[in-house]
């Protein structure tokens, strides 16, 4: 397990006190190591959404890893459930469970199922993996928050390809209808799905205009810029009487040179050499690090 270099660095404690860029690099390395060890999984869409999850889990959300079921916590639903690796990495480093366990991803008996499973692991708010369904459950959670007159907020993450599912628009309509301003949706706008660019496979554009037409407030953000994400969330919180969509421009495979903007890395695992190259791409500045050194050897 040590060969996975999972490390023990954790960032627990109140949100807002951690160096987000460092965390994001660590989480991306985790994603690579996990998918490499599992020999299957979804790196592309995990890397594109890493900075969004980093911001939410390490800066924005009101949560307590020691009390995952704390009733007043903010909730995050990963509607694009195939990005499970980044959710698991974020939860582990945040203190929900031991990062050593990350290396069990997708193995028989592991709590880290191929797609998030509610009840298997602390911090998983909903079972997802069948695209489109998570968003509807987030609407349900936001409705419950209103019924109980609670202040907690619900965050949901869709893939841009996922928006092709009809149920997404059913949930978007319901969220506006019930004026769920405690709900913030993100779209990981990386432009790719499995069979190719979203605009070629089944064009969901213009995404912003569609959400506006459905009654949502829409914010555009750079999904790899924490300040941009933060501004959009601040505006979402100011918006009353309707839900907010934060349309995050992202790069599929972000941070790994050979994975960026490549649809082929949606659901395939790096081999040994590719892993080392990826880890070198994701090394902390100023560290040559073992992965980087091995990369030289492998050339």
């Amino acid at each position, binding site marked *: 397990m040590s060969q996975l270099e999972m490390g023990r660095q954790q960032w627990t404690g109140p949100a807002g006190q951690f160096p987000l860029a460092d965390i994001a690099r660590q989480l991306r390395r985790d994603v690579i190591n996990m998918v490499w060890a599992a020999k299957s999984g979804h790196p592309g869409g995990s890397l594109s959404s890493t900075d969004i999850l980093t911001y939410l889990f390490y800066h924005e959300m009101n949560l307590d890893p020691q009390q995952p079921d704390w009733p007043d916590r903010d909730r995050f639903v990963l509607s694009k459930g195939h990005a499970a690796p980044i959710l698991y990495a974020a939860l582990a480093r945040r203190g929900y469970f031991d990062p050593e366990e990350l290396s069990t991803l*997708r193995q*028989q008996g592991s709590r880290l199922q191929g*797609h998030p499973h509610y009840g298997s692991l602390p911090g998983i708010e909903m079972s997802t993996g069948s695209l489109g369904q998570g968003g509807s459950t987030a609407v349900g959670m936001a409705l419950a928050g209103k019924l109980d007159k609670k202040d907690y907020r619900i965050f949901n993450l869709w893939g841009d390809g*996922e928006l*092709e599912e009809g149920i997404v628009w059913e949930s978007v309509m319901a969220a506006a209808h019930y004026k769920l301003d405690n709900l913030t949706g993100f779209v990981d706008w990386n432009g790719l799905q*499995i*069979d190719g660019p979203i605009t070629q496979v089944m064009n969901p554009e213009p995404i912003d205009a569609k959400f506006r037409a459905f009654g949502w407030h829409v914010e555009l953000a750079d999904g790899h810029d924490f300040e941009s994400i933060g501004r959009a969330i601040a505006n979402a919180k100011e918006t009353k009487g309707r839900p907010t969509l934060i349309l995050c421009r992202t790069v599929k495979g972000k941070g790994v040179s050979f994975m960026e903007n490549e649809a082929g890395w949606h659901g395939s695992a790096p081999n040994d050499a590719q892993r080392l190259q990826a880890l070198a791409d994701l090394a902390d500045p100023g560290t040559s690090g073992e992965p980087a050194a091995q990369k030289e050897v492998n050339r």
Partner: protein
Amino acid sequence: MAEAIATRAAYGRCLACISDKYPDLVVMDADLSKSTMTADFKKVAPERFINAGIAENNMICMAGGLAASGKVVFVSTFAMFAAGRSYEQILNTLASSGLNVKVAATHAGLTVGEDGMSHQMVTDIALMRSIPDLRVMVPADGVETEAMVEEAIRTPGPVYIRLGRSKVPGLFEAGTEFEPGKIRTLREGSNVTLAACGIMVDLALQAADMLAQEGIYARVLNVSTIKPLDKETVLEAAHQTGAIVTCEEHSVLGGLGGAVAETVAESWPVPVLRVGIEDQFGQSGKPEELLELYGLTAHHIAEKAIKAISLKRA
């Protein structure tokens, strides 16, 4: 030796091969063409390949419209999203109107492996079998898959074909003739019958070998058309062997086991034991590990066969 190949791979290859022969053939997919292998067809006949995007329900109903306009349509996605998500579209649009749409669902069963329970469809045979006028087919290897694709095209009306992700051993030589709808007896035997479908057929044959070493002779049936069921062959087996074990990569509820048990109970009651997934969810793991964990093994089939024989009435 017959070729070892995943049934989904045989399916894609077959579609590509026959694209010229059937100019009315249209193939649809929902953003999984490289997994379902319909990408093979897209390569040779891009103008007759329609990607519905990640929108299975819409795909099924669009296929219905194409079929009502004279096309023969194959639609593919994972079994979870075809039989599961689009159950009602298949029922209300395709089957109730007898539309000429062939739902070829891949990645059925536990052998999806690491993706886990959200993608492991183990109730599709039960769901699809409950729909009137829908034929339900489960090929056991690549050669039978190809035969079924052509059979589906020749026979008008809706069909559900269940295909797998993982490679399966070849059971039939290329060019084998199949009698549509008929159960094929792969091995004769008089002590017990092993009625299997899909990947379990090969395991049933292995179980029959194990049993033979103990002097127990098992008849092995390949029940590749589950609906309409070849009741005659099932009842003959009940009559002649007096005990049946069904074997399927599916829940023990309502699938092949259900079909056989219902048939036997009504006309010639004998013990029917079911090897399948015991009314529980799947999980992530390697396909072989999962088969072992859930008891889908030759060994387990042989054990059940001995139990079934012990339950025979004197």
